[in-house]
């Protein structure tokens, strides 16, 4: 069990490309930290630097109280689960699991005991004498998980471990991993986790905290709820949440927000919270927090997606594409031939961003 700290971590490749721009992050003991971001945001590179598979150009990685920059991966007390499992194809599951222990010189009897224990936890006992090619995707992933678990590492590293599985299996593995983490934590065993994914559902459901990254920078580190309720900037606002947050460009004049052709009065508590009054502002509101209302902003209806229990209404609001999520009942009550809708944002859920810097100027704690 150990705390993991990244201090001014930098990565520059031989061709001069700067992948990671000096990031700082403090991951607590036993914490489940998720790195999330679009592809190419350097989340995997960061993970590989922690693992020791990628050279560190600058800054330091600290596991517990050791600086591990120059340590070989095998000496860092970490274990890693790879995207495509990376099981050793010529070894049976049993040997795959115990390979690390064998290298560490653990006696055979002890190794076998450890294998049995891990196999029991992950329910892979019947698979122990199979080769990796005889396993299904889900089974292979559990073996890969077992190979990490058996080492009792200080930090677990996961590199998009579920992205090769089908949707159903992914959901069940997600639960299994979080469950396992909780159980290990309860037993006081090593359970600091860094989990890389591009899937925000995984990030939101699994992480104690989420680190949102973009182009080698950390955009925000917060709990899932904080990320959703109080995104620090436009990138996080647009990245987290399904469908994406509606972002409408405009200006603040007096107490109201003006789009190209319409205006909406901002509630006092939002105005009071504003840390700055940006020249070019962006109003952010989640699709779930837009209500159909006769007094709201008018938008031209473009498309309707029926999702079962709710309906996504896509509309054009003075040039900005917005989405409004309504219940099926609300949709049924609408005029079937209407080509415009009027939407009113939930005043308590409005965010105001500075269009130029991208920062959220309406965060509660900044008031």
């Amino acid at each position, binding site marked *: 069990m150990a705390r993991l700290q990244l201090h001014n971590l930098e990565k520059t490749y031989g061709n001069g490309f700067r992948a990671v721009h000096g990031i700082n992050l403090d991951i607590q003991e036993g914490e489940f930290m998720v790195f999330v971001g679009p592809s190419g945001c350097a989340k995997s590179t960061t993970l590989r630097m922690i693992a020791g598979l990628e050279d560190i150009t600058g800054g330091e990685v600290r596991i517990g109280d050791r600086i591990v920059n120059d340590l070989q991966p*095998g000496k860092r007390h970490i274990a890693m689960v790879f995207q495509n499992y990376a*099981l050793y*194809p010529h070894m049976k599951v049993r040997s795959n699991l115990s390979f690390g222990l064998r290298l560490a010189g653990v006696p055979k009897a002890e190794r076998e005991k450890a294998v049995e224990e891990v196999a029991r936890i992950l329910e892979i006992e019947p698979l122990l004498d199979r080769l990796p090619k005889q396993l299904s995707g889900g089974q292979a992933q559990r073996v890969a998980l077992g190979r990490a678990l058996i080492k009792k590492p200080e930090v677990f590293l996961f590199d998009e471990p579920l992205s090769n599985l089908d949707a159903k299996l992914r959901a069940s593995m997600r639960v299994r991993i979080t469950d396992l983490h909780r159980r290990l934590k309860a037993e006081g065993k090593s359970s600091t986790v860094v989990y890389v994914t591009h899937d925000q559902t995984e990030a939101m459901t699994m992480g104690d905290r989420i680190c949102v990254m973009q182009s080698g920078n950390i955009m925000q580190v917060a709990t899932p709820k904080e990320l959703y309720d109080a995104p620090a900037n436009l990138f996080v606002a647009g990245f987290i949440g399904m469908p994406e947050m509606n972002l409408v460009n405009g200006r603040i004049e007096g107490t109201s927000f003006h789009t190209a052709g319409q205006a909406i009065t901002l509630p006092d508590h939002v105005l009071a919270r504003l840390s700055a009054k940006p020249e070019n502002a962006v109003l952010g509101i989640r699709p779930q927090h837009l209500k159909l209302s006769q007094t709201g902003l008018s938008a031209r209806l473009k498309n309707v997606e029926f999702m079962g229990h709710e309906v996504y209404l896509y509309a054009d609001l003075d040039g900005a594409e917005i989405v409004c999520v309504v219940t099926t009942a609300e949709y049924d009550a609408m005029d079937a031939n209407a080509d415009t809708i009027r939407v009113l944002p939930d005043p308590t859920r409005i965010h105001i961003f500075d269009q130029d810097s991208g920062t959220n100027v309406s965060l509660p704690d900044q008031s």
Partner: protein
Amino acid sequence: MTDTTIDTARLQARKRIRNARISAFVRYVVLLAVGLVMLYPLIWLVGASFKTNNEIFANPGFMPQNPTLDGYIEGWKTSTPYTFGTFFLNSFKIILPKVIGTVISCTFVAYGFARFDFPFKKILFGSVIAILLLPNVVTRIPQYILFRDLGWLDSFLPLWVPSALAGDAFFVFMLVQFLRAIPGDMEEAARVDGANSWQTLLFIVVPMLAPALISVALFQFMWTMNDFLGPLIYISSVDKYPVSLALKLSIDTTEAFAWNRILAMSVLTITPALAVFFAAQKYFIEGISAGGIKG
């Protein structure tokens, strides 16, 4: 109406099956014929090795009229004080260290090129490819002078030492290509598991490389077995002759060529290579069709 449609459909289906059968038949006949043409010299060689010396030229067919082992018995004795067994032994004294050395050294070099970054890597790999393109003959004379100065003439050393030090660029290139097709994840997993570069090579890379290594061993075995020029240049004492030279010997020293002996010994000479090839055929094909590793 419906019946007619069904009948037409049936008729068409039957026609399709018949056409498919005819096409398959034609294909196999052509394949068999071409295969026979290609194999005929080998079949004739085996048949002729059991003929008497006179019959070889009298009877163009491959079936001997009065099969005799005379060719084998006389051929084995040779016209030298040594039996053919000595020459076989000599061949294996070259082949064995050469094959083992090639497999080990080429694995090291290929692993280095495929998985590590080091200064001048591009230039070095470029020179490997350049060597691959260089005609062998070009280096014969400098090599001869070098080995003469080392005092290695009339020994097996010049025949296997260069190869055992990864001197065969072709094999290095082949293994590098094979390694490049294997994803590096397994090796990274091994490193995380605590393996150093040597352990990764031994426990992870070599087992995955096995099909390619078997191909390398097979190629080297067959090429060395068939190598005539190398031994001709470096070996001068008859007691050190490998089989390829010994075969020629029987042509040189007899006034009237005993073709049946030569053919009999030729059959024996190709037997080990054929046996090894068929035994390892499965891996061989897997090895040269690189990239057949499932992730």
